[in-house]
């Protein structure tokens, strides 16, 4: 298990470095020279040079990159070029809604996917199985924005539910109503993959010796399915759901933008289209780091849930 986690960490490090490099590059492409800006319009050439030196802009790029990393570690991500607020403050404001949206999506889509997947595996080869699998192919093929557009047109347009922005925290009625459409949109593309993974994993488990033993013992079929089948099949499913967070992230960027949900994804798109480089850098950085930490967490969880992982090599 330690080896397994060490391996994951080893991969995560270059990824992290790559992410930081992207962030650093983003600050390099800023079209205006930060030294000239902070020196003011009346500054002489010498003044600019002095400020340049003071800001460390005359040093080689790799030294600047090192300094950038230490700044990021101190959560100093610069200031937004448009609102002039600290990027870390902007992120703190948007991170909550993004996490909220992802959880609101997972809470209904993951159980439904697991249910459909188990059902398909139980009725392997039947029309139920085939229709659930057909549904899951449709689910991975449909553009998430089309589902969003249809919901906006038919449900939002009819005035049944709000579809613009977040009307408050989740525990208020208004807040709960405003998250419904985005959560349905995002979750609808997530059910298919989860159902598919559950079915595969469940089929494998149902073919094992201990399930046959349980059946031979004369246990009721539903008991075999749930206690022996699903419980063991869920271990890989939990991991796979975790690994699909990246997929979910892509959907959430689109969903947030469509529904004006004040999350990190919408902020990233807005910052990029308005050339707010420091803000774009911060948003991309936090999305990548969030994704990496979830993956790492899922890996550790997997190794902990299933002791066979990582010990097999020994």
């Amino acid at each position: 298990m330690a080896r397994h986690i060490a391996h994951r960490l080893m991969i995560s490090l270059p990824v992290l470095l790559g992410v930081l490099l992207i962030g650093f590059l983003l600050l390099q492409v800023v079209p205006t020279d930060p030294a000239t800006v902070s020196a003011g319009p009346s500054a002489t050439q010498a003044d600019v040079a002095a400020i340049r030196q003071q800001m460390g802009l005359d040093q080689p790029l790799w030294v600047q990159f090192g300094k950038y990393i230490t700044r990021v570690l101190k959560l100093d991500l610069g200031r937004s070029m448009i609102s002039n607020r600290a990027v870390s403050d902007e992120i703190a404001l948007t991170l909550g809604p993004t996490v909220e949206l992802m959880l609101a999506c997972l809470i209904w889509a993951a159980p439904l996917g697991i249910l459909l997947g188990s059902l398909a595996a139980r009725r392997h080869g039947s029309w139920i199985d085939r229709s659930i699998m057909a549904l899951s192919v449709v689910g991975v093929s449909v553009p998430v924005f089309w589902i969003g557009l249809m919901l906006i047109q038919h449900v939002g347009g009819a005035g049944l539910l709000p579809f613009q922005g977040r009307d408050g925290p989740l525990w208020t009625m208004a807040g709960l109503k405003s998250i419904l459409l985005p959560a349905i949109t995002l979750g609808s593309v997530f059910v298919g993959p989860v159902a598919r993974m559950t079915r595969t994993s469940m089929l494998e488990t149902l073919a094992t010796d201990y399930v046959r033993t349980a059946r031979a013992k004369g246990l009721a079929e539903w008991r075999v399915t749930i206690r022996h089948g699903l419980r063991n099949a869920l271990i890989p499913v939990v991991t796979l759901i975790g690994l699909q967070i990246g997929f979910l992230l892509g959907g959430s960027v689109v969903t947030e933008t469509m529904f004006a949900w004040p999350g990190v994804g919408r902020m990233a798109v807005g910052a990029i289209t308005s050339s707010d480089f420091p803000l774009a850098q911060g948003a991309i950085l936090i999305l990548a780091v969030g994704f990496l930490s979830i993956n790492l967490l899922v890996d550790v969880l997997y190794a902990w849930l299933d002791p066979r992982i990582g010990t097999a090599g020994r």
Partner: protein
Amino acid sequence: MSDVALDLDGAAPRTNKPAWHRLVKDPIAMTAAFFLLLVVGAALLAPWIAPGDPYASNLRVRLCPIGSARCPQFLLGSDQAGRDMVSRLLFGLRATLMLGFTAVAIGGGFGATLGLLAAFYRRLDAPIMRFADVLLSFPPILFGLAIAAIIGTGLNGLVVALCITAIPSIARISRGAAQQVMHQEYMEAGRSLGLGDLRLLWRYLAANTWPVIMIYMTLQLGQAILLGAALSFLGLGAQPPTAELGSMAADGRKFLQIAPHVSSLPCALIFLLVLAFNVLGDALRDAFDPQLRQ
């Protein structure tokens, strides 16, 4: 010498008759294949078969619904600038397919080469696979965002982002398939004949791996098109007035209540396109590669 090599090539099963038979008998896969043939043909011929100019606007017939008497010249209505939807869909299809094919051909080709090299040269295996792991650790959407942020929004950045996302999964698949080929006796035979590395790689390894790679490229095409459309929808890819399905869908969403066809037609087309690639890819995989079904 080359005769011997040819014989050996022939010894390896390149075509798999029962698999083709299974595929041809699958009505759903055949429907998908037929649809794709039709759509690719229409996209290729767009400049000749489109009824009009996809960029010619006529503000007097803005947002004309499908089949309205106001615009009998437009089969599928018009968009917010009074442009013919049929022509825009055809050209949009062309742009979207071109994006997908370019990305998968370049990114997938690069990935496939990496995978073959990893299987062929043992010492390259670990570094290449770690590189693929690193690329896989980025969610695809982040490549899109980061590249759009660095080199600006537009089609160039979009192609680069789609290429990069196609590399790691194809590299993994081709390495797996190539490793199986490496265990075949004809590889050993070719080596003992004193064939050079390049020849072994190309004539033996690549020649016997490409069917599997092509199957996964089909599946990857669907993903690339979906991601490209999403990025264009976000305004990070194709820019208006370019006829591209994703940006057309985004353009039309301001008129959702009065003229839903402007955005729903391109959306539906993207969906059918991706669905057809996924269905065909799944069927190909099931027919030719039963071991890799998962």
